[in-house]
């Protein structure tokens, strides 16, 4: 099944492990992620002011690309891209005047007709394949691996874009359960990682990383699983600085959900791109007998 796919900038750069593991695992699920023939930055953050249309141009231009390629649906992986594209799309559906203004401004483009749907990969897998089908395709169950799932903010909030219940989401947990993993009850799964403060106000992020990872440890998790390159940077790569600030801090591997999906479906280890993870997840995966 061919699926239109919007990667976003970070998946082509620092989060290549997210992209390659997603493409590989989707192939094993029978989904062919077809990158848009043209795309630009999604805008990264959704503009919240009522008088600002300029910052909605980037996401809407991408949705025009989906239309040009002849698709009605587009799948994204990065939480920030998902949130920005989806919120901008919802705004266009709700406010025809605003849509007209945007179309008039981009007069060289074909008009955007707001009937494209923006999906996050996890929702797409759940709705189009179903987790039962995923369970049948598992070759290497993640038995014994204790996983804390971290959604962060942008997959659950605001209401117009939420993947699942915003206070007690289960969509990612259910997928990982189908893969054989053991889910840990993790109370901070929808907390903020500090986001862009990682530049400029790093201390905020270090405090957050200490709190979020320490709690996952206390709850008995072996690894933390997420779906956002920004959260991944803060919660994985920033563990180096967190350890300097808090000498008793215990590190924990942080993985993209697609990396575990790829392993469970019997994909190649090279397609997980683990060399880009800061805290090496291989020792714990070996210890559990999930990889050799």
């Amino acid at each position, binding site marked *: 099944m061919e699926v239109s796919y919007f990667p*976003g*900038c*970070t998946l082509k*750069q*620092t*989060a290549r492990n997210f992209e390659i593991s997603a493409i590989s695992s989707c192939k094993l699920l029978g989904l062919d992620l077809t990158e848009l023939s043209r795309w630009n*930055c999604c*805008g*990264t*953050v959704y503009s*919240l*002011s*009522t*008088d600002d249309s300029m*910052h909605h141009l980037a996401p809407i231009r991408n949705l025009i690309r989906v239309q040009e390629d002849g698709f009605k649906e587009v799948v994204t992986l*990065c939480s*920030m891209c998902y949130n920005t594209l989806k919120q901008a799309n919802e705004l266009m559906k709700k406010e025809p005047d605003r849509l007209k203004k945007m179309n008039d401004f981009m007069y060289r483009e074909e008009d955007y007709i707001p009937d494209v749907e923006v999906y996050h990969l996890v929702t797409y897998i759940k709705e189009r394949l179903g987790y039962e089908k995923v369970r049948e395709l598992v070759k290497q169950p993640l038995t014994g691996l204790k996983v804390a799932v971290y959604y962060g*903010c942008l997959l659950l*909030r*605001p*209401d117009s874009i939420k993947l699942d219940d*915003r206070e007690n989401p289960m969509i990612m947990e259910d997928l990982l359960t189908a893969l054989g993993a053991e889910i840990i009850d993790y109370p901070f799964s*929808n*907390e*903020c990682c*500090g*986001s*862009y*403060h*990682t*530049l*400029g*106000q790093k201390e*905020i992020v270090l*405090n*957050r990383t200490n709190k979020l990872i320490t709690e996952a440890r206390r709850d008995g998790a072996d690894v933390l699983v997420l779906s956002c*390159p*920004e959260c*991944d*940077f803060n919660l994985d*790569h920033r563990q180096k600085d967190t350890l300097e600030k808090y000498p008793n801090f215990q590190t924990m591997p942080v993985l993209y959900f697609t990396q575990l999906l790829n392993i469970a479906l019997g994909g190649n280890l090279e397609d997980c791109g683990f060399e880009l993870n800061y805290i090496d997840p291989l020792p714990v995966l070996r210890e559990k007998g999930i990889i050799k």
Partner: protein
Amino acid sequence: MKIEIKNEEVRSEIIQRIEEISGENIYKCYQCGKCSAGCPSADEMDLLPNQVIRNLQIGKVDAVLNSRSIWVCATCYMCWIRCPRGVNLTSLFEACRLMTLRQNLDQVGLKEAIKESEEMDIPQIAIISLLRKLTS
């Protein structure tokens, strides 16, 4: 602490502008404090989220615009979704930031923002979102 509420400050032009940009009515808030209870950044703030909106209600806009809080907020939307009155505090914070940014008063420079990128693989979305939120 004694606070003098001045007629000319309440609903001042700048506060009305904040309401207009955010699309939110500040008087919907009845100060239950759920926003501050849920805010993951509350620890780092000098004015709690409910105090930000309270200050706007009583016309103390300078206290808000000069606060550290509006720059600490990273738009996680927790305050908004948990508000029993549905007050979009997330957009109010954004409008408060814009009151400063639209005077061309950037809070961070490009060089400063990407300084660390040379040493570490900073994700592109971190750089872009920082500049989108803290510069005009």
